[in-house]
Each structure stands twice: as structure tokens, then as C-alpha cells.
């Protein structure tokens, strides 16, 4: 994958979460919407988040980072992905 901007990452992640975790492909997840502390992505699906990021962007998210302190919205997650792609 070549260069990718933050907005694109947010869009792709949001689509993937809506389709595969929420099973509601039409649901739009905004960049600053809480996804972990809100329970939108439940604990059983946190590991999926890490797998999606690995598959889509070849970036590793450690299990110790799967919590709301590390990232709680798509904007924060996209920042992590961008910083690790450099």
C-alpha cells in the first residue's frame, strides 16, 4: 500500500468496523466518536481491531494497547497507524 492519508484510514476503518463488528454496514462511525469506552466495539471484538489494522495497513497494535487510554476513536487510531507507517 502506498501513501495514505488520515481521512482515508478513518473511512476504511469505520467501514470495516461497521460491517464486520457491528454487522451494520450503513452505520457511519465519525472520526471522534468513542469506540472503546462507549462499548461500541465490545471486549470480544477488540482483538479484531488489531487484526484489521494489521491486514489493512501492515501495522501492529499490541494487545496492551487495546484500551481507551491508548486510543478511543478512529482519529487517534489513525494517528497511531500513520506514526508507525513512517
Amino acid at each position: 500500500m502506498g501513501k495514505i492519508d488520515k481521512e482515508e484510514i478513518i473511512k476504511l476503518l469505520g467501514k470495516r468496523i461497521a460491517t464486520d463488528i457491528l454487522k451494520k454496514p450503513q452505520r457511519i462511525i465519525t472520526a471522534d466518536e468513542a469506540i472503546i469506552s462507549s462499548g461500541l466495539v465490545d471486549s470480544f471484538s477488540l482483538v479484531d481491531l488489531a487484526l484489521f489494522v494489521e491486514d489493512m495497513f501492515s501495522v501492529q497494535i499490541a494487545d496492551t494497547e487495546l484500551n481507551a487510554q491508548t486510543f478511543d476513536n478512529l482519529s487517534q487510531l489513525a494517528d497511531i497507524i500513520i506514526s508507525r507507517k513512517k
Partner: protein
Amino acid sequence: MPNLANLLLDSYEKVPDKEVLVIQQSGEKDISLTYQKLIDQSICFTRELEKSGIKPGEVVVIVLEHGLDLIFSYFGCILHGCIPSIMPFLTEKLIPEKYCADLAALVAITKPSSIITYRQFQKEILVGLGNNTSVRSIILVENIHKCNIIDLNKIGGLIRSPHDIVLLQHSSGTTGLQKGVALSHQAVYNQLISYRKAIRLDSNDVIVSWLPLYHDMGLIACFLIPILLRIPLILMSPFDWIRAPVKLFKAISDYHGTLCWLPNFAYNFCASKIRESQLENLSLSSLRAVINCSEPIKFESHQRFLNKFLPYDFNKSALATCYAMAENVFAVSQGGIDSEIVVDEIDQNTYQSKGIAKPSIPNQPTIKMVSSGKPIDNVQVKIIAENGTELDDRHVGEIIIKSNCMLTEFYHRPDETQKAFIDGWFKTGDLGYQVDGELFVSGRKKDLIIVGGKNIYPQDLESLAMEVPGVHPGRVVAFGVYNEEIGTEEVVIVAEIEKNINDIESLEEKIRDNVTRNSSIALKNVYLVNEKWLIKTSSGKISRLANKNKYLRETKLNNYQ
């Protein structure tokens, strides 16, 4: 019979240097504990309880994260002779005010004398308890420092009698927290001895667990049994495991684990969420039993597990099953230890229309039922009809049990305790049938939802949905629908909405959010309907089963459209 404090101190005296417990925490080095270390640390809590004026026989609620302090405080309570009760710890998604309200519900019925927690919660807990509380002291783990060993012969735990209550177990939610299962030293001891024999537990075993300690499977099978019977235990946190399920298999491979207990959903979860690349170089050959317990056992889940883990030296004959409940301390029956688990392929039509599990007929639809094994040797099992008469083999009815390890009572709930028994037999509320002594659990009579092994009371979820403006008060129903993909039930809420609601999606979202943030489940399925959709019984109560069937019919219909 030795009580639990006697058992602990016996190990402390005879095998102080034996390593009994390894604690794994993500991102940290494993911590290994000998009996000496375990008891020395636990005694500091015993001392603190004594200093705080807490007397043997009084209840202590523990509000701590899964980890060393939880373990030390638990044994500290038992050594002091008081009764520990673990409150599931706050999760990220839970609203703190609701958590405090749940704690207050637990306290109101259980009337503990003390709460053990962290300094950061002290203020909130005090506010939640109010003025008229039974709680005389809040013990903060930050104040527990190294302590001098006290005269162990004088600790309160040693003089507890076999019939005294040793611990309380609760399930989650307001309803579950107000129905504490009180177990005596004798009951726990009888279960230990009987279950040890049933699973052929011996000194070569190593137990590996990620299960929470507030649940019977985690507390009894994967915590008290190994520690009291000197079997090494490798313990990780459920929070760590759910984020990296491969850790369980890594621990089994590294420590040569022989025994592991899992709820059914975990078979699907591990099969689907672990990558092959994570399993490279791991060997599961040491496992002699992986025991499926705590929620309905599915043949399909076992197949998924086998497909995934056979290439990593998992032995097919290690698949095992168990039927258990906190009210019986833990196990009722056990299968798959001396021989492979029994699978009964039955005719679907006769089962569904007549409640009879007839062997399958060629070319007819079938269901593969997995046996939960035979009753362990101190437990008797009967299947009864609605009218209380005992049923023959292959007839589905309510499972009732009798044993020498039953609960003493639902704590401070004589009403619930009385309702639970019939002529000295405990009514489990589960449905099942027997064939040649093998027990097949096939469904539930009680309106309980089991999500990922956790018992959830639908009334708690219904109340939360009713709090949302636009939902008709009193016109909500919650039930579980089995999802084969994830191997457990998913909660569905059907709610009647008031007229003139335009934004249906936003209302759905609000219900989802309110239930998720205030309960231990994450709600996905909300089904909004118009007034008078819900079916009521002749006595005017909303029937969960009838409405579940209506929902299934309707949504199936919609799927075809």
C-alpha cells in the same frame, strides 16, 4: 474434615517452597508464588481485617482488579474466618454511577462489614453506601504493607466449623448481585474431593486459566481446587486473554498445562481470532482435558476447535465436558476423562414437537447433542416433568439435583432459597435428558441469558431499555438467541415504542448505548415494534419465550424478503 483455612496452613507448613501459582500479566514478567509467599502476603490482609474490628463470620466484599491483591485479600479473608465475596471489577464501558448503584444493591442484601478496594474508589464507594450502611470499614490495598507474621495458631479461620459459610458467589447485574450463593466449608470440601476423583487430578497436573474469579468455574475449578489441593496453577487475567487469546495456548505450551476449563464461546473465539503465525512453535500435546462448561455445549464449536488446534499437537481425546453451577459449588457431572465424550444424534422433529430425544432416523433432520458426562459421585441427578414426576431416559424435563455440596442458602434470601428446592432436591431451572446415566443439557426453563459463560438476568436489561425516552414503559422484553458463529447467545431487546417517534435509528442507538454502558453485556440487537406487538400471558405478564418465538418468526420472514 479440615476447613479451608486448615488446608491452606497445612500446605504452608508442609510444602512452603512449593510453587503453586504463576501470575501472568500482559507486558510484565511472570510472577511465581510459593505457599510461603502466598500465605505471608495474605496474612497481611488477615491482620488488617482484625485491626479493623472485622469478626469471623462477617462478609467482606472485594472490589479489586484480577491480580495479586485480589488473590491475597481473598485468602486473607478465609484465614481470618470472614466470608469473601468478589464484586466483578469496573470495566471501561461501565458508567461509574451505575457500578456504585450495583454495589449498593449487593450491600443492601448481603450486609457486609467491610469492603476491600483501591484508594481511588474510596470516595465514590462511601457516597454510594450512604449513611445507614452495614459497612464499618473500607480497607485500602495501598495501606497493606509488609506485616510481621502473627501467631498462625490463633487466626480466626482455623476455628470455623464445617457448616459455617466460607464464601459467597454472585452473578452480575442488580438481580444476580442480590442473590448470593452461600457455600459452607463442608460443601466446598466435598466438591473438592469428589471432583478431584472425577477428573483424576494428580500431582503431574498443571492447570492453566484466564477465567475471572467471581464466577464458579474460575473461582472453584481454576483457583481454589488447584491451590487447596497443591496443583500448580498458571493464571492470567480475562482482560488480557480477551485481547490476545493466543496467550492461553502459549502458557499451556510453556508450562506444559494439562487441564483447562473454557465456556463454549471460547472454542469459537480461539478458533477464529488466533492466527496460524501466532501458533508457530507451540505444542499443546501436554493437554489431557480441555473442559467445556458454563454454557450450552455445541458439537460444532468442538469441531472448529479441533480443526484449528489439531496441527499443534492437540489430542482429540482431550475434549471434555462438564455441567456445573455455583449452587452445587461447581461440578454436577463430568465427561470425557476416562473415555471420549458421548455425542447423541437425535431426531430433530420428535425433539422439538414432543420433547423426546429419539435416536436419529435416516434422511430426517437431526441434532448432535453433546453429553455433559455422568454425575460425579456425590451428586444425584433426576429429570422431572412439569407435575414433578420422574421421567424416563430420553424424555426432556427439568434437571434437579441432590448432593452433599449444595448451597446453604441464597444469602439473606429465605424466599429464594425456599423456592429453589422441591423435597430436598435443587431445581436447576435447566432442561435436559439422560441416556444410560449420561446427562444431556438441552435448554433452559428459567428466563436466564448466558452470554460468553456469564449469567445475565433479562429483567435488568429490560429496565435499562425502559429508561430511554420514547420506549413504552413496561413494554420491553430481553432474551438470548444462539449465534452459531460465535458459539454463544446474543442478547436481543424487543421494545414497543410510543407513537410519533420519527427517528427510529437514533432511538435504537440510545437503547443500545444505555444497556451497554450500564450492564456487563454489549447490546447489538434492538428490535423496535409498534404498540401491542408484545404477547402477554393470560395473567397479563409479558412472556419472554412467546415473544422470542414471535421475533424469530418475524425476522426470519424479513430475511427472506
